[in-house]
């Protein structure tokens, strides 16, 4: 048996997005948004949508593959996949699952997608009006810890306490996203810059997170087309090869009521080493990082647990000039990310990584060859991936 790896076996050959809206503002229903994003990705890749033979998503996306395949008139359906659990933590895994299907011959052309119309459906950051609560949630909801902001803030608080990390470190993460969004005309926060004073004056949501530390809620859809590496080389776009991917979580990460043994964590401590092993790169090789901001505290812990710097260095590294595409050693969330481009559950982070490797980002990092994309932190399972140019493939 040869080496078991996804490295270099597949590539993203096309990316597509709808216009991004504030939540509830999409004029189109959610399923139509999914169709539009997938069509856009097919056009980008130069393929006929009928040639899609697999669909992969995450976070219980409501737009199911059988309906999509029928709507497009796909010639056949061979792969219908949902990453189980973890919500937005499954974004990289959805693409990795698509890649695994292609690499193993279960399918030839798989689209990974996410579509959200939160006006049509309930919002994430608001508790539903149930009269009773049971199971794991009964141990936190009656105490007013009902939304991700409230529960995950306590993870960030613990990590910041253990390592002496200051509020300014979180602020820099927020500033980086807003900084990059100003050059991205498609970003929801384009034309709405953020500075230190505005951040400091903003209201708390749940300490240590201010308003600007928390993801938006948006409507829209995004999609990426995964094909074999050989096929991608002959297609319209410069391929973004998948070098590695990993998903999951450390020991008893999902223990209820804050009993995760390593509580002050983004849950990448075991996952990130698998990623680098497969990708055959080190943190030093990463040219640009897209890291899912549900909350900036999650980004802080994700970056540390991906070995990009030590926790004790966070106060020094997490400064805006270090995080911009223009000057940064660690360019972060170069499209504006979940905070300032759009909260497309992090799939928009993958489309931006692809643009970086093609050289077509609005905030292009010079000579970007290796791009890290980290999906939603602090949940279980989390997932993470590394893409590379042909040069990085070696």
């Amino acid at each position, binding site marked *: 048996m040869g080496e078991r790896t996804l490295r270099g076996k597949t590539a993203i050959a096309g990316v597509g997005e709808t216009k991004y809206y504030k939540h509830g503002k999409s004029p189109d229903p959610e399923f139509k948004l999914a169709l539009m994003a997938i069509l856009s990705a097919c056009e980008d890749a130069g393929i006929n949508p009928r040639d899609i033979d697999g669909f992969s998503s995450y976070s219980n996306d409501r737009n199911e593959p059988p309906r999509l395949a029928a709507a497009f008139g796909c010639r056949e359906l061979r792969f219908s996949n949902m990453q189980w659990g973890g919500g937005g933590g499954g974004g990289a895994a959805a693409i990795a699952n698509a890649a695994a299907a292609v690499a193993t011959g279960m399918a030839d052309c798989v689209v990974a997608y996410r579509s959200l119309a939160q006006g049509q459906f309930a919002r994430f950051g608001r508790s539903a009006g149930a009269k009773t609560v049971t199971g794991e949630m009964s141990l936190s909801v009656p105490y007013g810890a009902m939304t991700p902001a409230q529960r995950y803030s306590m993870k960030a608080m613990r990590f910041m306490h253990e390592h002496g990390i200051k509020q300014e470190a979180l602020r820099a993460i927020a500033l980086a996203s807003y900084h990059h969004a100003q050059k991205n005309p498609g970003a929801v926060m384009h034309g709405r810059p953020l500075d230190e004073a505005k951040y400091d004056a903003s209201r708390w949501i749940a300490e240590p997170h201010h308003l600007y530390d928390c993801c938006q809620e948006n409507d829209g859809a995004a999609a990426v087309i995964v094909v074999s590496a050989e096929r991608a080389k002959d297609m319209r776009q410069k391929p973004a090869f998948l070098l590695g991917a990993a998903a999951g979580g450390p020991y008893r990460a999902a223990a209820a009521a804050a009993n995760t043994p390593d*509580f002050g964590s983004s849950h990448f401590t075991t996952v990130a080493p698998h990623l680098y092993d497969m990708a055959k790169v080190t943190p030093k090789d990463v040219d640009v990082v897209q890291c899912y901001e549900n909350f900036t505290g999650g980004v802080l812990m994700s970056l540390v647990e991906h070995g990009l710097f030590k926790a004790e260095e966070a106060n020094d590294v997490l400064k805006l000039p270090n995080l911009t595409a223009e000057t940064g050693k660690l360019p972060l969330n170069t499209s504006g990310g979940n905070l300032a481009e759009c909260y497309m559950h992090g799939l928009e982070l993958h489309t931006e990584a692809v643009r970086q490797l093609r050289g077509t980002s609005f905030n292009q990092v010079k000579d970007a060859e290796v791009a890290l994309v980290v999906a939603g932190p602090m949940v279980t399972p989390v997932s993470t991936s590394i893409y590379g140019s042909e040069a990085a493939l070696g």
Partner: protein
Amino acid sequence: MTARSSYLPEGLPIPVPEADGLSAPHWAGLRQNTLRIQCCKKCSTWQWGPEWICHACHSFEIDWKTVEPSGTIYSWTRVWHPTHTVLNDRGPYIVVVVELPHAGSVRVIGNLLGDAQQPVTIGAKVVGVFEQHDGTEPAYALLHWKVAD
């Protein structure tokens, strides 16, 4: 200022045991002003949240032991943004994760009583305060915390 009968207003979802009854001893215990936490009869490992099996030895023989409600603050957040209708006029409140040294250092989530603007210190000693909700259907109880004298 009106005295509150409960730390958070009535109207938040009422905790009830699962259909399979897994956590029922915990909720029944709180109604009797006792904190009951799972402890394995075979290997004495403490476990929280509740589960049908001991994660340490895979025994299904799990006891519910009464635990002294005192511990230390492991983490916390002060919530400012209301995410439920009944919290709209509540103002900020404090959620704490409390580590229980008398129960193998498992953790429970609760509220920290007192001034919502008080400074909160990780590692501070806290003691439990049971909060009975007699007038709801069903009745239930919560376990809150206050900084130890």
